[in-house]
């Protein structure tokens, strides 16, 4: 059983991946499987869920299920683009800082610490609000440009501990060039950290983008889950008791966020064996009547007889 399979055997990871796959499918097929055009007004104004409209309609009779289905794409694309761009910057800054050391490291980590300390959401709002048009991709890039620091910090710490390891030293003694040392020796050992940083950034990007849409910075004609909440909030859905308007969209965000967090949990358990041994084996321990105690780390794998 190698590490990769173990990743997939983890119940949390499977749950997370299944939910992610579902939303990805929704994002790909959205416009075709949505029962209505999300902008199509109808006579049934603000009606509760029924057979015709599974999740009810809004104040102009638009179908809310269709808005959610169509809106999935906007959410996922922004999450993905922001996640990828932030991860690329994070890897560049973090690995360079950790590997180079000295004054380069000092200044790069000071830079990423600055970006960590400056509150991101107000900064994103400030930039997005002054852009002439804050469409999905623009917002994704703004989020990516401000959200890379956390990954860079974690990667730097990890690279620092890697660069003096024997296998890196051996490669260096062989006369390998620096870029090859980084690409072939250090980066492969950072995969898990990079992956967890990526997943975390996607989550942050999704939450930020939805928030921006909710406060009405992105164009309200682009459907995403935040836009639905924007319309709901501005048309007094709360005061009118139209729960079908704001509950499903928020639940979708929460579900997507939870899926991402679960995947990250799985990655964490791979990186930190102590978490793995407790997390994965709680049930089997209980079955064997062992009560886990502090200072007692159960062995993950026992010899098969």
């Amino acid at each position, binding site marked *: 059983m190698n590490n990769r399979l173990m990743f997939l055997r983890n119940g949390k990871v499977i749950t997370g991946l299944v939910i992610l796959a579902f939303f990805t499918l929704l994002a790909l097929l959205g416009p075709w499987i949505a029962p209505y055009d999300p902008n199509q007004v109808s006579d049934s104004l603000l009606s509760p869920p029924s057979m015709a409209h599974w999740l009810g309609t809004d104040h102009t009779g638009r179908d809310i299920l269709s808005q959610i289905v169509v809106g999935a794409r906007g959410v996922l694309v922004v999450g993905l683009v922001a996640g990828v761009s932030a991860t690329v910057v994070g890897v560049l800054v973090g690995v360079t800082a950790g590997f180079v050391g000295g004054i380069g490291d000092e200044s790069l980590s000071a830079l990423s610490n600055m970006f960590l*300390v*400056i509150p991101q959401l107000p900064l994103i709002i*400030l930039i997005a609000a002054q852009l002439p048009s804050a469409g999905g991709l623009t917002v994704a890039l703004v989020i990516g440009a401000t959200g890379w620091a956390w990954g860079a910090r974690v990667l730097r710490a990890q690279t620092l501990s890697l660069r003096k390891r024997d296998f890196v030293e051996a490669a260096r003694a062989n006369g390998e060039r620096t870029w090859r040392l980084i690409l072939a020796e250090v980066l492969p050992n950072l995969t898990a950290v990079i992956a967890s940083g990526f997943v975390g950034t996607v989550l942050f990007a999704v939450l930020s983008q939805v928030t921006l849409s909710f406060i*009405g910075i992105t164009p309200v004609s682009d459907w995403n889950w935040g836009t639905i*909440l924007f319309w709901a*909030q501005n048309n007094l859905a709360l005061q009118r008791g139209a729960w079908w308007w704001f509950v499903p969209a928020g639940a979708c965000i929460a579900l997507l966020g939870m899926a991402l967090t679960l995947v990250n949990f799985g990655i964490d358990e791979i990186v930190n064996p102590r978490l793995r041994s407790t997390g994965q084996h709680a049930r089997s321990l209980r079955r064997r009547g062992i009560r886990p105690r502090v200072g007692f780390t159960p062995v993950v794998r026992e010899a098969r007889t």
Partner: protein
Amino acid sequence: MRFLLRRVVFYALTAWAAITINFFIPRMLPGDPVTALLGRMQGRIDSGAEQSLRVLFGLDQDLGLWEQYVEYWRMLLRGDLGLSFTHFPTPVADIVNQSLPWTVGLVGVATVIAFVIGTLAGSILGWRRGTWADSLLPVATFFQAVPYFWLGLITIAVLSVNLGWFPSSGSYDRGLVPAFTGEFIGSVIYYGFLPALTVVVSSVAGWVLGMRNMMVTVSSEDYVTVAHAKGLPERQVMLGYAARNAVLPQVSSFALSLGFVVGGTLIMEMVFSYQGIGYTLYQAVSTHDYPLMQGCFLVITLAVLVANMVADLAYALLDPRTRTEDR
């Protein structure tokens, strides 16, 4: 002392960076919304105010970038953040001054409560790992992934619209005059309860998970085993040996998560129409009040920096290594 000095230098640098970002953003972005607004305001702005707006947004074509920058700093040091467009001609600094205390109070109280509850709950969960306590983790995960504002919407829908227990918006009873009377303070607490509750509920999960993982890591350290072997009571080992060490990363991550919590609280204020700086920012965004937006960002950032400095001070007090280590 070295540690504190390094941190102070770092925060000074960060403050400088934030101010510089604030200076460059309107100059770097395409489009010029401010000229349009100035045009609309023609004749209603006196020349001095117009001048300060020009400095803020870089409309001085005849000045070089460096002179603009110097001029900008000079204005900031005078405490001049320009004039608000929507509340014309109120200075931005006045508006920010009025709303800042509300936010500081809300964020401060909610964050401290969330930190204490979360850290305690996290140490208990980490201590009882591998038992029923682990089944609480998915719940915490869920709350960590929920957007703040949605939780706010749900709380309003349930506790305020349906049950009518709490007001859904505002920060005190409008019939009262702000003063240090029991009645007014009671009203502030009553109105602030829901926003604070939602901030606590949505930020507590992060503390729980962080502390839980640190407890799991720390509790297999040798000194915990030794404490057990000495026959110390369970509670003393948990709080005095394991939690005491596990809390250190928690305090140092306090600084980093504060920005996130503040961001969430700003959104919460928008949802609850709570008259803090987040709501001001929201109004500024929806009315395209650029000077006000910039002023809000600057003040929020500086406030977060100050809070971080306090957290660092606490860290230096808690962790003796920062005091002795000569780094």
